[in-house]
């Protein structure tokens, strides 16, 4: 009897024990852990997508764009009473009093580093497949994108941590390239892949093309004096010539055409970031929400922030009368406001004058004070036309060009001018100006040109397109005084490395002055 009891007992015990034995392997249920994914040649499209996806971060207004624009005379985000102080971030950015702990330093560093890393991942895994024309094309595209993100990092921070695509032990601190080393490396990469890249005619400007590589080379050579300490104007001119002479690109006769909603391909575009407000892109630029006043609602867009404006200094450089680039009215019936610079009384779609929240009329005035401004202070700027009937009011309906042919003309003009080819420079600048007359008006052509004029022209053509800081640095004006901003130390031409990056990579040495 007793024996049976124990046999029974141990049987039950044994049965129960088996249901409780485990090797503790973690089974992930809601993610593809993915070793198979990246090793499957079927997924080649999926591998090249991520580095392209990071381009969207570079046009996000509070990310890379903010570091190239808010620190210049083009954009000012004033504190409006209890609005927009935001930890002092925007004041510091505009007045150039930032430190290594400024929130944007880390965000932009991380975003651009992610672009480099995604490109590396694509290069590495596509490189493991059996090679063919497609793998070669995609690897070249990824190499361009890696070079592009490294160029952006170098432009902002003046040094670039670097890993080869097959350096996959991420616990090792990567080597750090100096500004010159980085520029040379990027030039080397671009020239290596250039012959094998597709053309815009073949793949469109939404993909990396030969033209994009030429444009990037032109930009790096134009800035090489900043990056590498010596002038390379001839090389810059050479790549501009190649682009302009290719016949693939044309300066628009209607300046505002390329900034309309739902415009995809355009003759001006060399490389664009495709955006669509019908699709969740994970990030996307908010071109109107952040600048319009709270009352300027239209269509489905009702969340407006009344933030960034432009400085009076910059606003007043314009030939407001004759320059088509200053103002455009074609969407007023749908939006209630114009494209370009918004100044004076603002109206609703039905034409009634709008009011501020306290009941005063909504009149935008150029006078602005960064520390304390009323709601209506500052001339507003809106370059890209929004979609009034959008379903995602924070997604852009516009494809955004990050390189376009007018910029190339101005790069060539500048390089020529710096080589004292005044005639050549005038020809290029006047070619652009010739296309930019306001309707019924004529924008006067220039008869003489100085570097000052050229910088102004770049402002007229490319304002709020994320290029201003680089231009001001190259022209030696970035740390000069304007409006409220006092002259700052020359070390401000480079941003500080974010504290979080210096904390973990001992090869990074903080930039001077921080």
């Amino acid at each position, binding site marked *: 009897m007793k024996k049976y009891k124990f046999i029974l007992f141990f049987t039950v015990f044994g049965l129960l024990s088996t249901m409780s034995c485990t090797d503790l392997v973690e*089974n992930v249920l809601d*993610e*593809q852990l*993915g070793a198979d*994914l990246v090793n499957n040649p079927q997924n080649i499209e999926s591998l090249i997508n991520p580095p392209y996806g990071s381009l969207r971060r570079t046009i996000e207004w509070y990310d890379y764009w903010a570091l190239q624009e808010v620190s210049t005379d083009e954009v000012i985000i004033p504190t409006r009473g209890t609005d927009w102080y*935001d930890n002092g971030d925007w004041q510091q950015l505009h007045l150039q009093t930032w430190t290594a702990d400024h929130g944007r330093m880390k965000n932009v560093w991380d975003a651009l580093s992610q672009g480099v890393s995604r490109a590396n991942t694509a290069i590495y895994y596509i490189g493991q497949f059996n090679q063919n024309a497609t793998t070669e094309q995609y690897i070249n595209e990824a190499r361009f994108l890696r070079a592009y993100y490294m160029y952006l990092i170098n432009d902002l921070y003046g040094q670039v941590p670097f890993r080869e695509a097959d350096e996959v032990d*991420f616990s090792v601190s990567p080597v750090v390239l100096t500004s010159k080393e980085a520029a040379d490396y990027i030039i080397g990469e671009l020239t290596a892949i250039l012959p094998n890249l597709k053309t815009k005619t073949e793949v469109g400007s939404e993909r990396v093309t030969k033209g994009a590589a030429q444009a990037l080379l032109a930009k790096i050579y134009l800035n090489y004096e900043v990056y590498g300490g010596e002038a390379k104007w001839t090389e810059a001119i050479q790549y501009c010539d190649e682009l302009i002479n290719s016949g693939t690109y044309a300066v628009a006769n209607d300046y505002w055409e390329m900034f309309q909603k739902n415009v995809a391909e355009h003759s001006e575009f060399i490389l664009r970031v495709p955006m669509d407000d019908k699709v969740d892109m994970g990030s996307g630029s908010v071109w109107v929400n952040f600048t319009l006043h709270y009352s300027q609602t239209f269509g489905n867009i009702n969340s407006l922030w009344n933030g960034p404006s432009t400085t009076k200094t910059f606003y007043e450089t314009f030939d407001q009368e004759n320059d088509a680039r200053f103002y455009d009215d074609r969407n007023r019936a749908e939006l209630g406001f114009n494209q370009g610079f918004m100044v004076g009384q603002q109206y609703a779609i039905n034409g009634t004058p709008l009011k501020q929240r306290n009941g005063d009329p909504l009149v935008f005035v150029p006078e602005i004070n960064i520390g304390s401004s009323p709601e209506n202070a500052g001339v507003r700027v809106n370059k890209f036309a929004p979609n009034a009937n959008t379903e995602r009011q924070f997604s852009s309906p516009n494809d955004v060009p990050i390189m376009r042919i007018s910029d190339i003309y101005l790069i060539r003009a500048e390089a020529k001018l710096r080589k004292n080819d005044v005639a050549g420079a005038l020809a290029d600048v006047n070619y652009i100006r010739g296309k930019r007359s306001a309707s019924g008006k004529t924008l006067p052509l220039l008869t003489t040109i100085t570097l000052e004029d050229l910088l102004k022209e770049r402002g007229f053509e490319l304002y709020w397109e994320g290029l201003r800081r680089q231009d001001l640095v190259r022209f030696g004006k970035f740390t000069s005084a304007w409006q409220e901003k006092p002259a700052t130390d020359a070390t401000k031409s480079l941003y500080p490395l974010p504290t979080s990056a210096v904390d973990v990579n001992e090869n990074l040495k903080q930039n001077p002055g921080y």
Partner: protein
Amino acid sequence: MYSQKARFSMELKNVTLKQVFDEIEKNSEFIIVYSDDMVDVSKTVSVNADDATVNAVLDQAFQKTNLSFVISDRQIAITAKPANVPINSVQQTKELNGIVNDSKGEPLVGVTIYVKETTIGTTSNFEGSFTLEVPADAKTLVFSYIGFQTKEIEIGTQTLFSIILQEEVLELEEVIAVGYGVQRKIDQTGATDRLTEENMNKSVAGSPIEMMQGRVSGVNITQNNGEPGSGMSVRIRGSNSIRSGQEPLYVVDGIPLDNADITPNGGTAAGINESSNKNPISFLNPEDIETIDILKDASSTAIYGARGANGVVIITTKKGKSGEGTINYDGYMGVSQIREKMDLLSAAEFRSYTKPNGSKLLDLGASNDWQDEIYSTGITQSHNLAYGGGTGKFNYQTSLGYLDQEGIVKSTGIQKMNGKIKVSQKAFNDRLNLVGSLIASHVEDYRAPISETGGFEGDLILTSLKLNPTYPIFNPDGSYYQHDKDQRNPVAMINLVNDETQTDRILANMSADFEIVKNLTYKLNIGLDRTVAERRVNQDKQLNYLGNKGEADINGITANNRLVENYITYLKDINEDHRFNFLAGHAYQYIKVTTSEMNVNGFEVDDILYTNNLQYGNFSAADVNSSAYKRELQSFFGRVNYSFQSKYLFTATGRADGSSKFGENKKYGFFPSAAFAWRVSEESFLQGIEKLSTLKVRLGWGLTGNQEIPDKISLLAVGTTPSANGYFNGTLSPGITFLRTPNPDIQWETTMQTNFGIDFGFYDNRLSGTIDVFNKTTRDVLLEVPSKAPAAAQTQWQNVPDLRIINNGVELGLNGLLMDKKDLRWEIGGNFAFIKNEVKDLPVKLIETGNASGQGLSGTRVQIITNGQPVGTFYGMVYEGLDANGMSIYKKDADGVEVKEYLGSALPDFTYSLSTNLKYKEFDFSMFWYGSAGSKVYNNTANALFLKGPLDKGNNVTKAVLESKESPDNSNAFSSRFIEDASFLRLSNVTVGYTFDTKSIDWLGKARIYVTGNNLLLFTDYTGFDPEVSTDASEAGVPSMGMDYTSYPKPRTFTFGVNLQF
């Protein structure tokens, strides 16, 4: 009479008297007392009874003995028959008379009185008096009675005795739960506290956690806000980590619960983010709880290994007691109101404001107090019926509870239905003991659009604070007046949002104890904890701020937690001096949690709730999401208790814990502990000191872990994310990229704790207390550190080896029985704790958290974790007042640059509580105060709303703002201006009760009525609703503390209740 009710069936042949007594005690509530000197219990007897009374059983048993018995209620005193004193004795005798009373003067019935070292004795009768014939040379009389201290009296020439017996202080016999068993409190070596019904916070306590609040030293409990059933943050002995996952382990009837959040997400809108989480163990019915044991030091918690670092809370539910069934009914009705509204401008005061340019604010003519529109009186009712009893072999306890609690914000509340059954059955000659329990609960939460954080557009509370009081509620056509999407109508928000969560939870548990051989017991424990929660949120299309024609959210969570434990215990005594208790076991736990989410907008219908038929909306464009994870834990554990002469107590434990979450190189962790206690008062050299009744010194050390690390972080992840997708030719295609850098070495955080404690009692323990001093150091702190860019992912999880989080503390608990008379009993108690927290060797300069909410505060993080400072330190500019223009002045350095400084921590320096209980005749009175000192709170509400600028723009503000000299152009930059002292003292609870005399009513065992007031008084300098608040403003998983942003205010509640026993 109990002795008539209790019935026995037994057939015992040639057993010892002891066995008969044991049988009686086991199957009834009788306690049998006798003196070994007088009663020889080894004598063999036989009993054959069938449904017989105890008198019949004992009469049979005593047939051939010289013994007799006296029954007094549930006590049976056995004495030798006086008749058996040899009659032929030649000795001279004398007669002694006397009376025996307790300390209150009540006669004691059935006290055993005998002459020392003889069998001559008797028992006291119903008047407490006795008569005893003793030999003339008898020297000493002994008085012994269960529950009282035995007294010896020299007889001398005295013949009349008036004896007072002192009650034995029950605390000495208290048992405490220690994890996988119980232990006598006197044998305890660690720092633990036990709460029983006596000292738990009661009335309108929706959850067991509230019942602990303020009651245990070193346990800091903050109710996140005043919403019914709102989340709690419980920190036992400080903050050990800089991540979330700092909640203690809850063990309910032997089942360790999973702390996963089981609140489904709600609906959101611009300016209204996720609402706060709900309390994880609010599913338990407070009335079902018998005891709560709080294990604080590592020597106590190490038996829970990788889950012990945050302390352990062991909750034991009520079980049936042998005897006839009793029915208990407990019910109450409560009325809750807002304690104090914000002192906002009335419509008239608002109109009185003139802007600097001379103009007036927008005035639409109405006069509304928006706070009055959203707050109302909340009615709470609770009914609880419990029934329990048993035969000794089979015991049962069942209960049914119902709670309907209305919040003080209209349309908010909680309804809870609980059922519980617990049965136990003994078999195989009592060698097998089976216990089964089932706790089921159904909770319905009704919520308003109130969120933890949120934008300037505002949730309900924010709207009620800032909205222009001259706006009307309705348009002339009867529709809601909605001025703007950021100036919402709070009445519309209440009426047009319907937010209901239904949560069903079952906690089932079955355990079997089997005594294999004497003193060797095997125990099997199987548990299941399953939760299904569904939340449905409807936001009506009439709400103008939605912009998407109404929105419906249906979100669900299911959580499964399964447990199998096998363990053996072995007791071994080596002569009287050495006692061993061994425990060894294995545990396996499996946890799986799945979630699902659906969001549809664009509804055209008016008359039904959208969630009831999503097809009416733009369902083809629904946003859907789901997730799932599962976890396994496997553990091997053991414990040895050794006691030498009951004076020197040793405990050693060890647990090897493995978790599927840990990296493949670190699957198992080992967590040892050791403790020693010395019962100094048992030493002979202290026996002479009468005033000292207890003195025990404890010393403990142990390592525990915190395995509440995120899932999946040890593994590489490659996958898709929207930002990696490609968009070419107008088509979206997935992008595959690295989402996470793997770390195969990832493991638990380790906390080492040493504890030194003293337990003391004076004057028969009428004054007793405990002092504990501890040091708690956490290492291997888990941090999400930046990767070395460019890397697969931007951050990586690491255990940072050098980083330490240190908590040093002193805890003191005191209890005094100041008066103990027949009609008056007065007790007073207090708890005090100092805890100092410090972070050392952080590998990065600082970690930011505490995201401020509100306009102009984007990117503002007010709290940091940095070296040399406690967790929860506020950091920012130092406000020095307003200048002549009404602009803020901040402290500047020599270069004129505004400096940032440490502005204090949200952790208190010192917490305390005071309680008192007074019984006078049939009345009882209790009062409970608690408070904290030295902590800071960030008044985010004031920073976002209560300044001149918002008033100038047409928002309502507090009266102080209207009077201030601040300029409307002044910015609301975060600074010390908005860091306030959070010290407070709260009168948490006052109860007055009256117990009826039910002796004459035979169907009624007990009847008591009471009135309680909760949250009656609050003394604080804080200008917000309540300084005891915790809005979740975490940044990248680093929790914030002491943040207050438009929190749901805590109500003041008055309750009337009744306790009945049948």
